[in-house]
């Protein structure tokens, strides 16, 4: 997927654990793991707002675009 989430890098820079971030933003660790590993399909503005607030960063610091083939929605849908 061309959109890469850089949550692990920012957490490392802030010396913050995923558990602590989950507590602060009110998102489960499981969901933050999905986001961190790049498996998420979408991010709510409310989640982005909470992440940027707690990590003191901009949305652009959390995600970056890497040129590559677009993801195939059909492949992603298969259980």
């Amino acid at each position, binding site marked *: 997927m061309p959109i890469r989430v850089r949550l692990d890098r920012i957490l490392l820079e802030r010396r913050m654990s995923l558990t602590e971030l989950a507590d602060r933003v009110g*998102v489960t660790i499981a*969901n*933050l793991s*999905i*986001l961190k590993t790049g*498996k*998420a*399909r*979408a*991010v*709510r503005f409310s*989640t982005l707002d909470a992440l940027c607030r707690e990590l003191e960063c901009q949305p652009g610091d959390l995600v970056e675009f890497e040129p590559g083939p677009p993801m195939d929605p059909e492949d*992603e*849908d298969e*259980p």
Partner: protein
Amino acid sequence: MRALGPGSVSSFLKIILDVAQVALSIGLGVVTTLGLAALLFHFDPKIVFQDADFSTADAASARRIIAGGLLIGAIYIGGVLVIVGRLRRIFSTLTAGDPFHPDNVRRLRTIGMVLAVLEILRYPIMLITVWLAPEVMEKSGFSLNLTTWFAVLVVFVLAEVFREGARLRREAELTI
């Protein structure tokens, strides 16, 4: 009254389907046993055709017709059993409040295919019946059941609706 979840209409229908599955399983066992017994053992066909007067040769072919009829009946009951089994599993997910479970798409497609196969099987059976026992077909008549084909198409469309629902559910699960 709620349509989904525990204690809803779905759970009531699931109980009915549970009972139907048990009854069909017993019916399948009985009809298959009778069919095999009719095929293997010698019996008087007047048990079934009470008014008929059979010669020895007619009696043998009557026994084969009875055995064939019972085995075809067993195939039909087997098909209905598959449909009821899949419906039971679909209603289990409805009772659990999870209608767009990804497996429901495959279950609905199976139901549609079994319905279509049972309807397709009906035509050669009707032709064989016309050939072997024309008096039976005079009573029931040769018919193209449009209602069944309509039901088959509706089930396949519903399967696609459920596929879309499952896709949206997965997308919602992966929205953070």
